Each structure stands twice: as structure tokens, then as C-alpha cells.
């Protein structure tokens, strides 16, 4: 049956993959709807200092693209929003999007910044990985897009006050701050604003929900997070970054001293069966090399050590790059695992062994950097459930074919890009963003689509009306109806049906059938197996 294709695309995730896909499609004249969970787009790339192996400034190459997204007439940007539910099929998706309340009317707000400079409530900054603080009304970082604040309702004093009075608790009420409201020149603060659900229609969906880094508290041998000077690679990125908490000066968290001896430990939450992370996170070897180089450039007196299992430097100019880290910048690569770290005065004693010379090694370090691995962002599995796409044990999404259909899923019209499929570096994510965009463009190039939605249907002539199917349908997608000749029969509600085919196996009458997996098709497969 031919179906109209809705020419709009939904892109889930505003990281570099999502941004690329969005711009490619928008430039191609398609309307794009970009949904990002955080208050700003940019994703992890925005947190990075430099990028390997070319060492150009991450923010500098990303920022213009972010601005393009914000200004592109064909792109609707929805930050601080999440996909709540999805119905329909290729060409005709209907998606409920939850817009979390910002308590700030962005149509009025000019982004002058007064509010987030004056807000008295200080909260650890997520963007800077809690190495400094932000205010309760905030933009995550100076180059954020959109450059308009949201109020963190958890921490805002006035919000706390309201919750307190609603709860009607005893004791002294918190102050009714409302400073931002008083100071806002545009009167953009809107306490009434609530979460809202927006329902939009799309022809295709690109999922680029990216990754998060492994939580190293699982590694008690590395202090399980109790040593302030054992940090993650991402934290080091922020310390190296000119826009970071230390303005680009590498100061160790505990006492703000300049670290002279820095130890990198690779494969933290990668290639580690015990921790349930047997896969390689792919980018760590390279970013450690990069960070060692950057540290040396910041301060020639720094000595870096790198405990590694293997050096994975497959990629254009990659191996040369990690070689430079060793040969030019004198990083000492030690093949072996670190067995434990303990504090001794101001030093961190790193005990490991050099498996090449088979001798234990002990290094008194000022700073230890854990190359924490990559895992899918929280909620990836739930999202996959909603989208009817499959995902593996670690919640990475599964592509339709690992070789030949790397950005497609088993569900038509839903495409993938970036590290939500598996660990990737920036160029790969960008490539996939473009690839997904190309797939969508190809889909839209035909104006009507002649694929069937994979939903069930019930032949009214055959249905005997036992109504068993209405009882088993997990989605309550089967209603009853009275025929002209007075029989009560079941009918499929196509918008609710998700195509599991339970009704087909339940139906003795042979009335129920499932497009894409019809009785005819499956029987034909059975009978042709040994022809």
C-alpha cells in the first residue's frame, strides 16, 4: 500500500554526529528537528580541548557548526528535551517529545547573562565534571547553543521554597530568592512554565545518542574515586582546555599544584571481562597520547608514564602520532597493568608491573589519569525499546548489517550514527552522520513510499469473533466491531499495533495476519527449505 512520506526528520542527540546529520539534511532542503537532552548541543566534543591526531582546537571547529544549527532556517532545535514515545512506521512516525521546563521563556530571553552571573546558588558543574561550579540558573558552558539559560529546578532556591511550602513541612522556610526574576531585563523568567509534551510527525529518525564514560568507582584498586588526584581523561581535557575550570592551567584538584609526574592508565572499563566491558573503547590510546603531548607542551618539566595493554593506533596518521608522544615528547610507555594506587603524602604511589621486562614498577605520581572507556548513554536501552530497534548486551544499538548497512536498523526509517552503535572517534562519527543523512535523503527522494507498515491485519470474512486476540495483544491494539451481517469481530488499530504477530499465532481462524511476516511467507520459507 502506498503511503505518503512526511518530509521531516527527527534527529535524537545533538553531538557531532547528530549535528552533522542535521546540517547535511537541512542544507539539502529537508526540515530537521534536533532533540538534545542537555541544555546545549555540542555533546562530548564540546568538552574536548584538542583533537587527535591533528591537534586542532575541538571547540574552534565545533562551535561554528553549532551556530549554524542554531541559525539554520530548516532546523528546529529542541534542547533540554527527550523522546518520550513513538508510533507509526517509516514515512509516518509520530513522536511525543518531552520538553523539560526551563522556567525561562526563550522567546523573550536575550541571553544577556545577568541572571547566571547574579544567581546566588552554586552547583557543581556537570560540563566541567564537577571540577568547578555553575549557578542554579545556567548555561552549561560559554559557547553553549542556544546561549539561553535554564533553571535547574532541583537546586533553584525559589523552587526549593515552593516545594517546601507545598509539602507544608515544619521549620524555617528557605529564602524566596527570585533574584534572576528581579534582574531579568526581558522579564523572561516564567515560574509557571511546566514540562510539556509536543507531538510531531516525521518521515525518518536518526538516532545519535552518543556515549558516556565508564564510572571508574568500580576499580577499587585505583581508589574507586576516593583520591581527588586520580582523574579521568575527560576531566584532564577540561583541565587542559582554555575555557576549562582552571583556564587551561593544569592544576591538580587536591591542592591546585602543578603536577610534574603524570601516570596514564589505559583500558579502565575497556577490554576487561571482570568489569563486564570486554570491548575496546578505541579512542583511549589516542587521547592518552594526545594528552601526554599537551601536558608536555603546557609544561616541559612534566614526565608522563603510560601503562598500556596494547597500543591501538589504527587510523590515518594515528601510529605516527602516538610514536611522537613517545619519541618527541618522552612519554614512557609501560606495557602492563596497574595493580594498585595508594597515597603517600602528596604523592600517589602507582604500583604496576612491566610485563616486557617482567619486573614490578612503582611510580610516585602527582596526578593519575584513568583512560575510562566508552559506554552508551544512560537510557539507550529504553530508547531502543521505544524505537523498536535492537541493541546488544552493553546497550549499543545493533545495525541492520555490520558491514553493508552500518547506519541502518532493522526498522525501516530509523537510522543510526556515532558512538551509540559502538566506540568511535570524531571523524567516524561525522562520517556516519553524513551517511545517515544520505540514507534519509534517498528515502525522501521518492514522494510516496510503497512499503507496508509491519502491522497485523484481520480478515473480517474469516474472523470468528472469539476475541482471544483482543485479550493477548500487548499493546491493546485490537478493538471489536460489528459487521453488516451482525457478527462481532476483531479489528486492528494500526497506529497502536507494533507488529509482534502474537494475534496471528493465537488466531485459529486464520483471520489475523502480519505484514512482512505473513503466514504465506513463513510457510513458503518452511516448504522451500529443502527443495
Amino acid at each position, binding site marked *: 500500500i502506498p503511503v505518503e512520506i512526511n518530509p521531516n526528520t527527527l534527529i535524537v542527540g545533538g553531538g557531532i554526529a547528530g549535528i552533522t546529520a542535521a546540517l547535511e539534511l537541512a542544507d539539502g532542503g529537508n526540515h530537521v528537528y534536533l532533540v538534545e537532552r542537555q541544555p546545549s548541543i555540542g555533546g562530548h566534543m564540546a568538552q574536548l580541548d584538542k583533537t587527535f591526531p591533528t591537534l586542532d582546537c575541538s571547540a574552534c571547529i565545533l562551535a561554528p557548526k553549532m551556530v549554524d544549527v542554531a541559525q539554520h532556517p530548516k532546523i528546529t532545535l529542541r534542547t533540554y528535551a527527550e523522546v518520550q514515545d513513538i508510533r507509526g512506521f517509516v514515512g509516518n512516525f509520530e513522536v511525543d517529545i518531552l520538553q523539560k521546563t526551563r522556567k525561562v521563556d526563550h522567546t523573550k530571553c536575550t541571553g544577556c547573562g545577568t541572571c547566571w552571573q547574579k544567581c546566588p546558588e552554586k552547583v557543581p558543574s556537570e560540563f566541567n565534571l564537577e571540577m568547578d561550579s555553575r549557578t542554579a540558573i545556567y548555561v552549561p558552558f560559554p559557547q553553549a547553543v542556544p546561549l539561553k539559560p535554564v533553571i535547574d529546578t532541583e537546586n533553584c532556591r525559589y523552587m526549593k521554597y515552593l516545594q517546601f511550602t507545598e509539602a507544608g513541612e515544619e521549620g524555617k522556610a528557605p529564602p524566596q530568592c527570585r533574584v534572576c526574576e528581579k534582574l531579568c531585563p526581558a522579564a523572561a523568567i516564567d515560574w509557571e512554565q511546566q514540562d510539556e509534551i509536543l507531538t510531531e510527525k516525521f518521515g525518518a529518525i536518526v538516532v545519535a545518542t552518543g556515549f558516556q564514560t565508564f564510572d571508574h568507582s568500580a576499580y577499587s584498586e585505583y581508589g574507586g574515586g576516593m583520591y581527588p588526584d586520580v582523574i579521568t581523561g575527560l576531566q584532564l581535557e577540561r583541565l587542559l582546555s582554555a575555557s576549562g575550570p582552571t583556564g587551561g592551567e593544569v592544576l591538580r584538584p587536591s591542592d591546585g599544584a602543578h603536577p610534574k609526574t603524570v601516570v596514564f592508565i589505559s583500558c579502565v572499563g575497556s577490554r576487561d571481562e571482570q568489569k563486564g566491558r570486554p570491548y575496546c573503547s578505541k579512542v583511549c590510546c589516542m587521547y592518552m597520547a594526545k594528552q601526554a603531548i599537551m601536558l608536555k607542551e603546557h609544561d616541559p618539566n612534566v614526565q608522563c608514564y603510560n601503562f598500556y595493554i596494547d597500543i591501538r593506533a589504527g587510523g590515518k596518521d594515528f601510529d605516527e602520532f602516538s610514536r611522537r608522544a613517545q619519541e618527541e615528547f618522552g612519554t614512557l610507555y609501560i606495557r602492563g597493568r596497574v595493580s594498585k594506587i595508594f597515597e603517600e603524602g602528596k604523592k600517589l604511589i602507582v604500583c604496576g608491573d612491566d610485563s616486557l621486562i617482567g619486573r614490578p614498577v612503582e611510580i610516585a605520581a602527582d596526578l593519575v589519569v584513568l583512560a575510562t572507556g566508552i559506554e552508551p548513554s544512560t537510557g539507550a536501552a529504553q530508547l531502543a*525499546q521505544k524505537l*523498536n530497534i*535492537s*541493541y*546488544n*548486551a*552493553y546497550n549499543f544499538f*545493533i545495525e541492520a548489517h*555490520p558491514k553493508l548497512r552500518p547506519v541502518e536498523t*532493522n526498522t525501516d526509517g530509523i537510522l543510526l550514527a556515532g558512538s551509540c552503535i559502538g566506540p568511535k572517534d570524531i571523524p567516524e562519527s561525522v562520517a556516519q552522520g553524513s551517511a545517515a543523512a544520505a540514507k534519509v535523503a534517498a528515502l525522501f527522494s521518492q514522494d510516496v513510499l510503497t512499503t507496508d507498515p*509491519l502491522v497485523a491485519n484481520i480478515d473480517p470474512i474469516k474472523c470468528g469473533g472469539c476475541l482471544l486476540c483482543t485479550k*493477548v495483544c*500487548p*499493546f491493546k491494539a485490537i478493538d471489536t466491531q460489528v459487521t453488516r451481517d451482525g457478527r462481532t469481530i476483531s479489528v486492528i488499530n494500526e497506529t497502536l499495533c*507494533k*507488529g*509482534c*504477530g*502474537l494475534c*496471528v*499465532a*493465537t488466531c485459529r481462524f486464520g483471520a489475523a495476519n*502480519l505484514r*512482512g*511476516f505473513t*503466514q504465506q511467507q*513463513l*510457510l513458503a*520459507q*518452511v*516448504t522451500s*527449505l*529443502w527443495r
Partner: protein
Amino acid sequence: MAVEYQPKIVGFLCNWCSYAGADLAGTSRICYPSNIRIIRVPCSGRVDPLLIVKSFQQGADGVLIAGCHPGDCHYSEGNYYARRRLALLHTFLEYIGIEEERFQIQWVSASEGKRWANVVSSFTEGLSILGPRETTLHKETV
């Protein structure tokens, strides 16, 4: 020399778990017997008993249904219904003389490529030991 007996197996695999699992087994180069012919279904709950009975009539030595572990159904409940239907069919087929080893229901998730390989291997092995089905069904009546 005599060719050793290769049992014919039909596998109905849930698209969301077992099929992905088998895929994983393939892509991660885990070896398992090639006797199985895979039919992809959206859910183990989609498998109509007719298809299984038909498979045996068409000469299958074994039929394997693989779906998501109970609780993990992509459609939340499909495999619970499947479990009931298929468990009953299993005892019934055994009753009409199709040895229980010839019909298996297994839960294999998308990540269990290894498990998938093991399931197929042991199933195939079991069938090889059992030998071909003794049946007159492909003869005609008077």
C-alpha cells in the same frame, strides 16, 4: 565412503534477540553446525504451531524456537504466551511420537552469540545421535 547423517533443522528466531545473537555468533566468527535453516520472526509469540507441524511434515529432523529470555520480550509479553503454546505443543508432539529431543524452545539474547552456538551444536549433536526420523509419512496411501 559413506556420508555421515546431517540432521535437517528449522530454526524460528526472534528478530530482536536470538536472530541478533546468531548474527553476533556469525560476525564474531564463532563456529557452529550449518544444519540449521533460520527463519526470522518478529517474536517467538508469532510462531504459529501450524508452522512447526508443517516443518516436521516437510521432513525436518528438528525444530528450534529461540526467543528472548522471559521478561526481556521486545513486545513485553510475547514470549510468555509463546512459552505456554509451545510447551503444550512440545508435549503433544512427543505424544504423537516425535521424540522430545526433536523440538526445542530456547531463550537466547542478542549478546549471547556463544550461547547460540552452543545451543545449535548440542541440538544438532542430539539429533545426530537420534538419527533420521522413522516415518512412513512421505509414502502414499492405497
